[in-house]
């Protein structure tokens, strides 16, 4: 088991290396430079600025230097659009806010989705099932950027219950966290229900019932573990989806998270900033996926880890 975890962690290294390479190639292949959108800059000054960031070096040399900068000097370099600020500094300030949103979003999604899915499966084909699944369907189908403005319109602009935007107290967190969590909660509810339906028909559940366990114990102790497997394998991609979804939420609610810098960095061609943010996303995603693999093994011993 621990060998597996170690190997899984070790396998992240080539992946991250690949991500770095892809991002580098893409950024440098793209036409234009970080500075050519500032129309007022005279050509000599433009050349000087590009020189300062070594944009005239041969491409392989740039690539080597860039890897050295990350690997040896452990820095992601200076931001090209926010002079005097390093990329780590920007990420260090904004990532915790994004993580806060993502963490609470995940908790809320699990807390809403799993019970809803269990109810749907255990009371299959009753009105409770229909209501639970209709709610889940709505949750999947209404995009975050439709839901969020409508909730703001009703709860903040008309009823004045919650603040419109910003990121200060828990009251500011309610709407963003809920909007981030809802689609994921809906997916989790559907997966839980489907997994549960499959599991409660199997022999070991019949055995558990036959030996007289209460329905509650059968569902919670025996069935849930198997039923959550699809949910667990969804958490990796789901987490990625939530990271991306937080781009929209951060924008709508004016949250000082990392997403804004990705969109801005892409639009401004701030090479170092974009590369840094993408790298952070990739690390988060790899770690989440590795954790999912380990958890999967933990929950289902039948899965062999011989990859």
């Amino acid at each position, binding site marked *: 088991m621990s060998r597996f975890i170690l190997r899984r962690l070790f396998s992240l290294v080539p992946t991250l290396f690949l991500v770095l390479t892809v991002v580098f190639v893409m950024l440098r292949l793209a036409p234009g430079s970080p500075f050519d959108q500032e129309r007022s800059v005279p050509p000599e000054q433009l050349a000087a600025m590009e020189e300062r960031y070594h944009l005239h070096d041969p491409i392989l040399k740039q690539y080597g230097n860039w890897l050295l900068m990350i690997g040896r000097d452990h820095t992601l370099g200076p931001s090209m659009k926010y002079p005097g600020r390093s990329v780590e500094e920007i990420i260090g300030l904004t990532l915790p806010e994004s993580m806060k949103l993502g963490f609470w979003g995940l908790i809320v999604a699990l807390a809403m989705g799993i019970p809803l899915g269990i109810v749907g499966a255990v009371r299959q084909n009753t009105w409770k099932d229909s209501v639970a699944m209709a709610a889940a369907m709505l949750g999947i189908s209404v*995009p975050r950027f439709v839901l969020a403005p409508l909730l703001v319109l009703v709860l903040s602009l008309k009823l004045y219950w919650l603040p419109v935007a910003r990121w200060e107290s828990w009251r500011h967190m309610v709407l963003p966290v809920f909007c981030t969590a809802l689609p994921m909660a809906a997916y989790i509810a559907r997966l839980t229900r489907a997994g549960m339906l*499959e599991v409660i028909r199997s022999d070991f559940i019949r055995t558990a019932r036959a030996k007289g366990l209460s329905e509650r114990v059968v569902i919670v102790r025996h069935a849930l573990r198997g039923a959550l497997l699809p949910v667990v394998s969804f958490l990796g991609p789901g987490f990625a989806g939530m990271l991306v979804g937080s781009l929209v939420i951060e924008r709508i609610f004016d949250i000082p998270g990392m997403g804004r810098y990705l969109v801005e960095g892409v639009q401004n061609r701030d090479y170092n900033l974009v590369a840094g943010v993408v790298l952070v996303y*990739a690390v988060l995603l790899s770690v989440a996926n590795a954790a999912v693999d380990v958890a999967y093994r933990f929950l289902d011993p039948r899965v062999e880890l011989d990859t």
Partner: protein
Amino acid sequence: MSEEVEATETPPSSPAKASPPEADATKGASLWTDAWRRLRKNRVAVVSGVFIIFLTLFCIIWPEVSPFRYDDANIALGATSPSWTHPFGTDDLGRDLLARLAFGGRISLAVGIVATFISFAIGVTWGGVAGYFGGRIDAALMRIVDVLYTIPLLVLVILVKAFFANDKTIFYRWFVWSIGLFTDHAKDPKYLPLFQIVFVFAALGGVSWLTMARIVRGQVLSLKSQQFIEAARSIGVGDAGIIFRHLLPNALGPIIVYTTLTIPSVMLTEAFLSFLGLGTEEPLSSWGLLVANGTESLDLYPWLTFFPGLMLALTLLCFNFLGDGLRDALDPRVRKD
């Protein structure tokens, strides 16, 4: 849902394929007729399907017959609330929202269908081959999928779109060449937005096949060790025959469910990109772009957010219901109830 198929359950041996041909003809209940009958009984799915058909027809026809073009600005008119002339109102440039919705629907639906088709083709082939041949091929193919999973692909789509969907890249030259086959003025800048959309189609399709590959592989893995496959092999059915006639039909439930769920998710992604200002661009319209524009004046002109949002949500809802109905109709394992 893939790995934990209960081995104890009766193997869902392909009913149509396993029975001899003459029995097929008399019974007349192949997997597909059976499924079709079950689907018709599902009222929600039927209504959703009908809605999607009508919506598609509407989006195709309305921009041609509408009295207002989607990009006809009328600054003097400005934003007006819904009325008889403009059933859904107009935006701040005086453009008819209904016409913009119908035109945007073309783009949104086309993205959903084209990108899903690309992801379906790649995903099924990839996962089927990996699961069936196993061993080193499996390890290599799934390793690639694992690595791709680790790259935040939507972020990649954003990068690709922002950096390569302009008129300076080789892709644009290819595009100009290919539409040059149909028109004399291929370099006309009015085709640039079209190019950017095609680019988004391809990019979205190219990144959304990973889960499909995993699902198909999981299905194939769990099915291929079952007895009916062994039986087929023992009577001399070849690799292709086993994959296409025995494995894939039995894995079809999850594949179809995931495909129909890919359509709305791709449409959602396109809307998301447009919302961030990285997808479809003005003067074209797509539902995501309309919502984005609407939210800027949410408290003044709420209908500009409401109608596109409703349209988008309703369409996604119908695709999701249809996907569910198809699953109930096609998945042999839920047949018993």
